[in-house]
Structures are given as structure tokens and as C-alpha cells.
């Protein structure tokens, strides 16, 4: 068994990265390495229909012909794709929705992470407290999805991707790979070949999803990659708010997380997608270990007046490389991107968004707050483009970077392409350090240096935190503080 | 002078004016009061010809001449002046250059002779002094970095320089302290004459203490719902717009 034993006491002693514990859970692994047989193995493990296997094998063929990209401002040793496990699942066969059959160790993991998997735990709170449904993905598989019945009553489908492929093949076939094509990029292509699980959401026309949906991703196994795939479809005039959270144990070797998220909005529909990403960032001094977070997230605003809003709080991972984007195809559709990216220690982040205005009167708004500390590097990279037909397209971008310390780096790389005379793009960016005057002012009033930094940083990121669902905003604010511990002084 | 009949106008998809009728004879000052969103600013933009304000029915004439068929600058040359609620900043164009360009364009449109530079400067100095405007300010880019009060004073200065026949004051009192309000009102009152008329658009009665109207109209729901003498403004100040909002 690959998992390393660690006690709960050790967990409590982990100050910096409190989700760094490893759980000893019996698991099934696919043999190490990557070839067409592994792809077949994954597909067979999940009892997939023939068309799905064909899709995966096609992706694998294409992937073999592609080269790893190198344009981002990140540095890392070449990844050995043969030295990783592409499938890891808890051993017990998990009955969908039957929580009692889930390995108690797994339940313990989620309890430690503060994720409610028992519906009554959520309900036990104060009457009127916000409720949210959870899909828990543990390494390669979804272990449980809560509140499915209640959601089904209003027609909302919320289940694991594996289940969707079996139970809703017509929807999966219709939408999978239509936003992020199989060979879109190197990592998305790899994902298409070996993706293990993820969440699937379909909200029918006119339905406002009655609760927040969320997926909680956990990488546990050693030497394993996680390749989840999420697909959310908001049909006409529907609304859904979705949140994903991610953690992983502290390990010395790097683990690859190459997810794909596809969102589709039809006429008048809206998806609000929030991410709190706290994968293990690696050792703050040596930079050893940590997750490579190479993710492709894209929304296709197909319908007129449809809307997608991405909010992300990126504090973890040793390398983050992601650009949640919006294709604004529908007339009057709009896209938003709110981001907080914090790097400390030896972390590297290259993140931003693409707002591609294709339809008339489309709108987009980008608010990005980057904070670099330690010896980290933090890059905002973004594209705003208006095509000749996108008359009346509007974009506003505000892109601020804060530097804490002498050895970190902050970069801003916006691309702006206006291809018609009726588009209006505005972009502002600033790079500054934490103001000593403000720090002194706060400390003179009695705050410690750490408290003062926290206070000022909270002010800096407030605009983005406000976009998160309330209960997560509080959590995210704590995360911001933890991520910057030890960065001053 | 100004005659508006059964005016209907849309902004985008929204119908804002729904059959507005109004007569303002030469020599008179009329006030238009009304709740927020009644269509007060829309009326001023429709009369001056702003893009995006679509007239769907009805008409408006100035001295019998159809206003709606004219370009904004042609209406200005006919003597129609709008004092903007939020005057625009024009970076890179000194106020004096802007006003002289406008004055000569209007004169040209009326087949009058252009004003000479010395004549123009003399006039500008005189009017600036009357309005207590620092002449140096007129050399700066128009309205750029000016306070709210300075911008409003600059509107009145342009009004004095261009000497229009029909004046529309759109919320001219907003953002003004008492001293500025007095200076601005004095400037406006100085322009009162038997061959000029004014339409004073305001939410509050306060401005009408300084610029005394002959008639007061209540605009609600896109139409004039009540008209009366100056006492109507006082009544509105006391009782609010609720009664009229309902009537609309």
C-alpha cells in the first residue's frame, strides 16, 4: 500500500498547510505508466459504454502527437508521464448515495476537512442556514453525492461524471468536448484520454437551482495524477451556483492535476462558478513537492443574454497554470472573472482569463488581484478580444499586483485585440508593494505586524472575496491569511 | 416659442415619454419638476437631439420650425442651449478654444460673420468677470479637473457667450453650494429677456427661489400631469410627488 501512515496528532501539528495529512485507505491502482491499455483499464473499471472508450482512445492518439507547451512564465523539470498512476480508487465498492458503505476512513478525511457528507449534518444547523449539496471526489472517483433526491425533484441532475455517462449518455454525448475540444491543448487532451471522474450538472429550463452545488476534490494517493472532468449545462433561463474546493497531502514528489471544466449556458441562463484551490504548495523553503495544477476551464455562453461568472481563490499548488475563460457567443451575453492568486515560498502561478467577444453587445469584466511573497512568482495573463461581429462589446479589466518581500516577482501580461470600431475596452493595472505608511499606521494603533498585513491584504482582495458565496468567503479570507503567514519580517 | 405636442420617445426598448405636451412662450421661464425617472432628462435630450433617444410620435418646434428634423449642432445654431446635468470633460481642448469654435460654427450656420479674436477675448473677459470666473481657468482644458460647481459655472459662461434664445437647464442646482447657486442664478437671470425663454428642469424647489418661474409643470410617467403658477412648486416641496406618481 502506497499511502503513508500519519496520525491525527501530526495533522494538528501542521501549521502552514493544515490539509497536508495522508489517509491510509485501501486503494485500487491501475499499473503505473500510460499507454492505450491503461486507457482501456480506466474505461473498463468504470463500466463505460463503447463510445466513451473510443472517445478516450482517440484523445490518447492525439495526445501522443502533441508537445508539452512552454510559453507560460513557469519553470519545472520535465514531467515523466510514465512515472505516475492514472487511476487510484478506494477499494470498497461504493454504492452510490449509500453513505454507510463508504470507507469510514474516507468519511474521516472529509470530516477533518470540514466537508459535510451527511445531509443531516448540513441540516442540523440553524433553520434557514445556507445548504449546499456536495459531490466528493477522492483521487480518481466520486465517493458520494449528497442531496441528489431533493435536486431531482426540481429536475436538476447532479451526479458524478461516471454516473452521467451511464445514466444520461444523450446529454453527455451532446455536450462533452464541445467547449474544450479534445485536442485543445496538451493537458486537456491528456485529460480526455484518462479522466477518471468529476461532476456533472444539468439544470433544466427555467429552474433556479435551490441550493449551492459543490465538488470537493482530494488527492490522497502517492504518485498519482488527478484528471477530473466537470460538465455543467444551464439550460434556458436557469441558474446555478457551483463551488469546487481542492486539497492534497504533503508529499515530496510532484503530483499532476490536469482537470477540464466545461460550462454551457443557453439563452438567459447563468452559471456562477467559484473555486477555492488549496492544493499542497510544496515545501516553502526547498520548493520540493506540491501539485502541478494545469487546468483548462472554459465557458461557452451560447445563449443570448446568458452569463458566466468565474471566481477563484488560488492559494495552493506548486505551479498553477489556468485561464478560466468565456466564449461570449450569444448576443448580449456576459462573462466575469474575479481572481485572487496568492503565491508564497517557491510557488509559481500563471493565471488569468480569456474573454472572447463574438456576439454583439457582449460584456466582460475582469478583476484580478495577485499577491506574491517569499521567492514566488505570480503572473496575470489575459486575453480580451472583440471579433468584427461583436459590435458594442465592452470590457473592463482591473489588474493589481502586490509584492511582499525582495525576492518575489509579479508580472502582468494582457493581450488586447479589438477588431471593430464599436468595441470599448478599458484596462488598468498597478504593481505596488504593501505600503509602509499604512503598515505603520495600523501598527501604531496596536496591531501586530502580521495582523496589519492581514488587514491590508484583506482590503486589497475585498472586491473579489465579495463575489464568493458568503460561507466560502469567510473560509477564503482565512486561507488568504494562512497563505501569507511568515511572509513579512 | 417652444411648442411640444404629444411627444412620445423611447430609450432603447423603454418608452419614457408618453404623450408630453408643453408650450413655452417667448419671455417666460417654465419649470419642469418631477420624481426621479419621470423622464425629465429624456425630455432635454430629445429636444437637443441626442443619439439613442428615439421619437416615436408627436413633435417639437421652435418658433414654428421643426426641431426634430435637425442635427444637434443645427438645433444649437437655432439658439437651443442645454446646460448639462453632468457637463463633459474635454481633455486637450482649452475652454476658450472650444467656445470660440462653437460660436463661429453657429455664426457660420446662421450666415453671420465670424467673431474676430480680439472681439472674442474682450467678450470672454467681460462675461468671466460677471460670473466671477478666473480668466486663467478658461485657458485650461474644458472642465478637466474642475469641481462640480466650477463645471456648472462654466456651463453658464458658455451660455452667456453663445447667447442662445431658448435655454434648457437640466438639474443645474445639483452639486452647488449656496454661493455658487447665487452666482449661477444671477448669470441665468441676466439672460432673461422678452425674446428668450427657458425651461428649468429640477427635482427640488430650491433653485426656483433664485430663478423665479412663470409656470410650473409636473412631469410624471412621461407626461405633464399638472401645471400651475409658482405656488405649485411650494406645494410639491411640502407634499412630495406621491400624488402625481400615482396619477401617472
Amino acid at each position: 500500500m502506497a499511502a503513508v501512515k500519519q496520525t491525527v496528532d501530526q495533522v494538528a501539528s501542521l501549521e502552514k498547510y493544515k490539509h497536508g495529512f495522508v489517509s491510509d485507505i485501501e486503494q485500487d491502482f491501475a499499473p503505473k505508466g500510460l499507454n492505450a491499455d491503461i486507457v482501456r483499464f480506466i474505461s473498463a473499471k468504470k463500466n463505460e459504454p463503447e463510445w466513451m472508450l473510443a472517445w478516450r482512445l482517440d484523445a490518447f492518439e492525439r495526445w501522443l502527437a502533441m508537445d508539452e507547451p512552454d510559453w507560460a512564465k513557469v519553470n519545472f523539470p520535465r514531467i515523466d508521464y510514465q512515472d505516475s498512476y492514472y487511476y487510484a480508487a478506494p477499494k470498497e465498492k461504493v454504492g452510490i448515495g449509500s453513505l454507510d458503505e463508504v470507507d469510514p476512513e474516507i468519511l474521516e478525511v472529509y470530516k477533518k476537512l470540514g466537508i459535510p457528507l451527511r445531509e443531516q449534518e448540513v441540516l442540523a444547523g440553524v433553520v434557514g442556514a445556507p445548504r449546499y449539496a456536495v459531490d466528493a471526489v477522492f483521487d480518481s472517483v466520486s465517493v458520494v453525492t449528497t442531496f441528489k433526491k431533493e435536486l431531482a425533484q426540481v429536475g436538476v441532475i447532479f451526479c458524478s461524471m461516471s454516473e452521467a455517462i451511464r445514466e444520461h449518455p444523450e446529454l453527455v454525448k451532446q455536450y462533452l468536448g464541445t467547449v474544450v475540444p479534445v485536442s485543445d491543448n496538451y493537458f486537456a487532451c491528456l485529460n480526455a484520454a484518462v479522466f477518471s471522474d468529476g461532476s456533472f450538472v444539468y439544470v433544466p429550463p427555467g429552474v433556479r437551482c435551490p441550493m449551492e452545488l459543490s465538488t470537493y476534490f482530494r488527492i490522497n494517493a502517492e504518485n498519482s495524477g488527478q484528471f477530473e472532468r466537470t460538465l455543467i449545462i444551464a439550460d434556458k433561463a436557469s441558474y446555478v451556483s457551483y463551488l469546487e474546493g481542492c486539497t492534497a497531502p504533503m508529499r515530496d514528489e510532484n503530483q499532476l492535476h490536469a482537470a477540464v471544466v466545461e460550462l454551457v449556458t443557453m439563452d438567459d441562463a447563468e452559471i456562477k462558478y467559484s473555486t477555492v484551490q488549496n492544493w499542497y504548495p510544496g515545501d516553502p523553503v526547498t520548493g520540493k513537492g506540491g501539485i502541478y495544477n494545469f487546468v483548462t476551464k472554459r465557458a461557452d455562453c451560447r445563449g443570448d443574454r446568458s452569463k458566466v461568472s468565474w471566481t477563484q481563490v488560488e492559494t495552493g499548488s506548486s505551479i498553477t497554470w489556468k485561464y478560466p475563460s468565456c466564449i461570449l457567443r450569444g448576443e448580449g451575453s456576459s462573462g466575469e472573472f474575479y481572481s485572487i492568486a496568492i503565491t508564497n515560498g517557491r510557488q509559481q502561478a500563471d493565471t488569468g482569463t480569456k474573454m472572447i467577444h463574438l456576439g454583439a453587445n457582449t460584456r466582460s469584466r475582469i478583476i484580478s488581484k495577485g499577491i506574491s511573497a517569499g521567492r514566488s512568482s505570480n503572473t496575470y495573463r489575459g486575453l480580451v478580444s472583440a471579433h468584427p461581429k461583436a459590435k458594442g462589446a465592452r470590457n473592463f479589466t482591473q489588474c493589481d499586483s502586490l509584492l511582499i518581500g525582495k525576492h518575489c516577482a509579479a508580472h502582468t501580461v494582457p493581450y488586447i485585440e479589438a477588431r471593430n470600431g464599436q468595441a470599448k475596452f478599458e484596462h488598468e493595472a498597478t504593481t505596488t508593494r504593501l505600503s509602509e505608511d499604512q503598515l505603520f499606521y495600523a501598527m501604531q494603533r496596536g496591531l501586530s505586524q502580521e495582523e496589519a498585513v492581514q488587514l491590508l491584504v484583506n482590503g486589497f482582495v475585498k472586491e473579489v472575496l465579495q463575489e464568493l458565496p458568503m460561507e466560502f468567503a469567510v473560509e477564503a479570507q482565512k486561507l488568504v491569511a494562512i497563505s501569507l503567514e511568515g511572509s513579512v519580517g | 416659442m417652444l411648442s411640444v405636442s404629444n411627444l412620445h420617445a423611447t430609450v432603447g426598448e423603454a418608452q419614457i415619454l408618453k404623450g408630453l405636451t408643453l408650450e413655452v412662450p417667448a419671455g417666460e421661464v417654465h419649470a419642469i419638476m418631477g420624481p426621479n425617472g419621470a423622464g425629465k432628462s429624456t425630455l432635454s435630450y430629445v429636444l437637443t437631439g441626442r443619439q439613442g433617444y428615439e421619437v416615436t410620435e408627436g413633435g417639437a418646434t421652435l418658433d414654428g420650425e421643426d426641431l426634430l428634423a435637425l442635427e444637434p449642432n443645427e438645433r444649437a445654431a437655432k439658439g437651443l442651449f442645454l446646460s448639462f446635468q453632468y457637463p463633459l470633460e474635454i481633455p486637450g481642448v482649452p475652454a476658450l478654444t472650444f467656445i470660440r469654435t462653437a460660436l463661429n460654427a453657429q455664426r457660420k450656420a446662421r450666415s453671420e460673420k465670424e467673431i474676430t479674436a480680439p472681439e472674442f477675448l474682450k467678450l470672454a473677459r467681460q462675461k468671466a468677470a460677471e460670473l466671477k470666473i478666473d480668466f486663467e481657468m478658461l485657458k485650461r482644458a474644458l472642465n478637466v479637473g474642475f469641481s462640480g460647481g466650477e463645471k456648472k459655472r462654466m456651463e453658464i459662461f458658455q451660455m452667456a457667450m453663445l447667447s442662445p434664445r431658448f435655454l434648457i437647464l437640466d438639474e443645474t442646482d445639483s452639486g452647488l453650494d449656496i454661493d455658487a447657486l447665487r452666482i449661477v442664478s444671477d448669470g441665468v437671470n441676466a439672460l432673461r429677456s422678452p425674446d428668450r425663454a427657458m425651461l428649468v428642469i429640477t427635482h427640488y424647489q430650491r433653485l426656483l427661489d433664485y430663478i423665479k418661474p412663470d409656470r410650473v409643470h409636473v412631469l410624471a410617467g412621461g407626461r405633464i400631469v399638472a401645471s400651475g403658477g409658482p405656488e405649485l412648486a411650494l406645494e410639491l416641496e411640502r407634499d412630495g410627488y406621491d400624488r402625481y406618481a400615482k396619477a401617472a
Partner: protein
Amino acid sequence: MSVAAAIRTRDVGELPSRRDEDWRWTDLRGLIRVLPAPSESFAGTLAAGPFDRLAIDHHVLVNGGDARIDVAAGKKTLAALRLVSRGAGAHASRVTINLAAGARLRLLESYESDGASVCQTALTITLAEGAALERIVLAEDHEDAVSVSQAEVRLSPTSDFGQTIVTSGARRQRIETRASHPGGRASARMDGVYLLAGKRHADHTTVVTHDGVDGTTNQLIKGVARDQARGVFQGKIVVSEGADRTDARMGHHALILSDRAEVDAKPELEIYADDVSCAHGNTVGAMDEEALFYARQRGIPEAEARAMLTEAFIGQVIDRIWFEDARRVVRNWAAERLRV
């Protein structure tokens, strides 16, 4: 791979293409199928250049060649530098400019082509301590010309470098300035204006690298694109580790005055020091309709109001030219092109 090498070897494979990140919006390989033969030497007489009447020293390169301008310590001069292309050949020019300590130079540079030439100019400009250089560039290329100008500027502490590049574009045109900035109270101004019509293209690319403490850079680029023209701005400010108290501002603002014109911009900051104040702003769009309406409400006809507002928009860059006589030449040049 470089434009100069392509001209020398006549190998189009040497030309940069849109696959090169730095040339993504100024593709030369996709445009030029065959490089023209080397330009012949020119024997005719030239008409006056745009700055002839202002300059004391005159340097004229027709269809390539080398030029050198040296200004001795504490001396001051006013030089016109004309880079002229006659005919449809290919050629490269090299210009070396040295300012000794405390020297001052006003450099009035012009690019003048009259046909489908392909030309490249490499300038190496060095400023010693306390030197001051104002470089004013007027690029009046032919609509069929392909023109690339690449300047390397080395500043020293306490030197002042200011440039204003004014261009009406070409079939494809790139004007590039790479400045190494030592800080030490040296300052760099990197301004530019592009006024493009027809199918013309102009690319302003600048990179300023701050390597020492207490440096300032200020940049304002404004452009107007009409018809099917394309304006490109790539500005990059790098602040190296330790280059504290760097103050760098970059602004790029463009008006697109037709449905089919295009403006591409990449204002980039690459910062490795924490005690800095850097900012950039970028706006692209149509003319402000509210300002236009305001001017028309005061009686100014539409065409005149548009010209007035466009001139004022561009004028904010021209006003930053220190040398008043050159400012006047540039302002008239711009007005002629805007009042159409």
C-alpha cells in the same frame, strides 16, 4: 533570425513570423514571399526632409548605409537624420549615436520611402552620465513599404532620454526601441503617436529594463485607426531584482474610427523588485459619443467636432515634446492627416 539577416541573405526564412511571440501582430514571413533585390544606389536629388529647416547637422542615408553622430562632452547640437528609401529594393542602415558626459542632442529623425521597399534600420544610442537626448521620429512611409526600425538605447545614471515617434504606418511597419535603464535618477520618456488610414499597419514596440535604483520611465502612446488600418502597441517594462524605487507609468489609448480597423495591444509589466510603483492603462474604443454630443449641442458640426476631439486626443502626446519648433512641425503634420 532577424530582419537585417533576411535582407542580407535574401532568405525569407530569416524573417520573423506571427509564431514568434514578439511579432504575433506584425507577421513579416507571411507577408513577404520573396525578398526584393538589394536597392540600387541613388543618384538623383532629394526633396527637403520634414525637419531640414530646424537642424544644424544633416545626416542623410539613401537606400542604406552607415551613419554616426557623436556629441562631445558638454556640447550641444541639433541633428536631422533622414533614412530615405527610393525605389522598391531591400536595404539596411546602421546608425551609431554617442553622447559623451553632459552632451545634449536634439535628434530629428525621419523615415521616407516612396515605393514597395523593404528596409531595416538599426540604431545604437548611448548616453553617458548627465547627457540628454530628445529623439523625435516622423515616419512617413509609402503605403507599399515594409519598414523596420530597431533602436537599442543605453542610458547612464542622471541621463535624460525622451522620444516621440509619430507615424502614419506602412504596408507593414515596426518601430522598436529597447532601452536599458540603470536608474540613478536617469529618466526615460517613450512616447508615440500613430495615425493610420487605408490598409496601413504600424507597430510600436518598446522594452525598458530597469537595472538600478531610482529610475523613472513614463510612456504615453496614442493612436487613431480608420478604414482597414491596424495599430499595434507592445510595451514592456521590466524591473530587475534590486531596482528599488523605480517609478514606471505606461499608457496606451487608441481610437478606432471605422468598423473594420483593428488595434492590438500588450502592455506588459515584469517586476522582480518590491519597492516600486508601476502602472499601466490601456483603452481602445470608438470616440466618446457623449463628448461628441456635448460639442454638437454647442453648435459644432459633427465632422469638425470629431476632428477637434481627435486632435485634442493626439495633442496630449505632442504637447510632451520638449523642443518647441519640432512640436509645431509634428502638430501640423498630425492636423493635416486628421482634417480629412
